[in-house]
């Protein structure tokens, strides 16, 4: 597996477009994570001026709540790693290197697991990055730091890694079916931001929760805030095993389809 990952790293590290995409991702994520609290507080401050009760200042980023909040917000940027994966997978088709790798001696299984290891590494890197942001924000925003509460809800980082992994296998599937980068990215964005939300809206009850990307997004649900509690809305504050199960089934399904394609197709 490490040998396969090394092969993928040689390709990825030297590919400039990927670095630009990664930098944009870090900038966008940093901007949102660091900016959103100020923004919400400004809005609340403005709106709450004439209310009889004083709205509490939001603290999204105090330990241990920070872990839930940063991973939830970062969830909106999952398309970035998925696009990176799509580019790296479709590159193999446009350069015909997928064929060359088999000629050079890679088995069909290795071809598949090389990309799976790449997705795994990407998910871990993205998770660590969000974890780093979360840690910095936590330090900056917690009034009294206690070691006990520091990592209390940090399992959200692990789940975030899984969320990215699951989303990227969906990208992997699209890339394998479509084979061309621009087209594949288009299909991903179209499905993620237009087609699935419409289907979700049309489906009765909570059937929409079983749609692929919705279920992946459900892993980390919208966090509670003091504001919400005042209004009387309670959101799920934990990771449910049911959500995990649905996302896991989708991940296995996507990767199995790709595996079969990799095994069977003429290159």
């Amino acid at each position, binding site marked *: 597996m490490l040998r396969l990952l090394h092969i993928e790293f040689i*390709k990825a590290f*030297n590919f400039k477009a990927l670095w630009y995409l990664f930098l944009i991702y870090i900038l966008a994520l940093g901007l949102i994570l660091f900016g959103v609290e100020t923004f919400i507080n400004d809005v609340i401050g403005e709106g709450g001026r004439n209310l009889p009760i004083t709205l509490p200042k939001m603290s999204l980023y105090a330990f241990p709540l920070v872990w839930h909040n940063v991973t939830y917000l970062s969830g909106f940027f999952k398309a970035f790693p998925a696009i990176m994966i799509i580019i790296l997978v479709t*590159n193999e088709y446009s*350069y015909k290197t997928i064929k060359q790798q088999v*000629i*050079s*001696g890679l*088995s069909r299984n290795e071809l598949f697991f090389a990309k799976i290891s790449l997705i795994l590494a990407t998910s871990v890197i993205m998770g660590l990055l969000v974890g780093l942001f979360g840690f910095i924000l936590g330090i900056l925003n917690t009034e009294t730091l206690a070691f006990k509460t520091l990592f209390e809800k940090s399992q959200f980082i692990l789940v975030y890694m899984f969320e990215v992994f699951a989303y990227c296998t969906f990208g992997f599937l699209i890339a394998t079916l479509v084979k061309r980068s621009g087209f594949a990215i288009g299909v991903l964005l179209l499905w993620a931001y237009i087609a699935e939300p419409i289907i979700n809206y049309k489906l009765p009850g909570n059937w929409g929760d079983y749609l692929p990307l919705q279920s992946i997004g459900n892993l980390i649900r919208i966090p509670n805030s003091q504001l919400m509690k005042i209004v009387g809305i309670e959101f799920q504050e934990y990771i449910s095993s049911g959500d995990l199960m649905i996302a896991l089934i989708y991940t296995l399904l996507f990767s199995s389809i790709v595996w079969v394609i990799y095994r069977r*197709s003429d*290159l």
Partner: protein
Amino acid sequence: MEILNINQLTKHYGKLTAVNKLNVSIEKGSIYGILGPNGSGKTTTLGMILNVIRPSAGTFTWFANTNQNVNRQKIGAIIETPIFYPYLSGQKNLEIFCRIKRIDNTDIERVLKIVDLYDRRKDTFKTYSLGMKQRLAIAGALLGEPEVLILDEPTNGLDPQGIAEIRNLIIAIAKQGLTIILASHLLDEVQKVCSHVLILKEGKMLISGKVDNILLEPNIFEIKVDEREKLHKLINNTPEITLVQEHNNLFIVNYKNQSNGQELNRFLFENGLVANHLQKQEKSLESYFLDIIEHA
């Protein structure tokens, strides 16, 4: 020792049969040419024995061994055009090959020096000329000192100088004892480089054997004599002479190993025949090859 055995290998693309029940056996140390016009199934055949294309039927066995993963380490191959990551340097591209073949990066220097690309190793692949790209492909195939080298149209698209470079390189590599399988549509290339040849047409094998026997420069003569029957008898009793055609008393024969009309004339005379007409037909090997292809 048998390196490769192909048994009834077949590939269908819809209604088209690209390769039709092919049987081949390749011995160690030979330079095996697969000769045929474009579209005759050469690349499809190589694709199948390299696991790139799934056969519709039939089997093939490398090194009399069924463990594909072990076998693949002993095979170096290039197919059609050189394929590499354009944004990576020659060196980096070969590092990927090394990881795939589970060998150390130190072998890169050796193969780059063989193909004379060592000085350009740090330049990205897209800056290479076509000849250099093809040489890098050969370097990649040579990594890890494989026992078999598969080359598909290695001189395709190259200028005369590049063609000469690649051919000399192949001959030099062959001298080190590697088994080489070379696909080409160029008769002259197979003739210059190969020891054995298989001629393919529309996915079927027409003929196979030693180049010296099959692609021998024919010596075609036209002969006219009064005593037809006597000539017939003589031809039948002389293995060096084969009758190609008989038309209106004009015999067209292939006199093997003798390009000289004088020799044939003397031979006829010694056997009591006097020719009214004796003429050497100037027929190139190329047209002879085309004849094989046409009349099969």
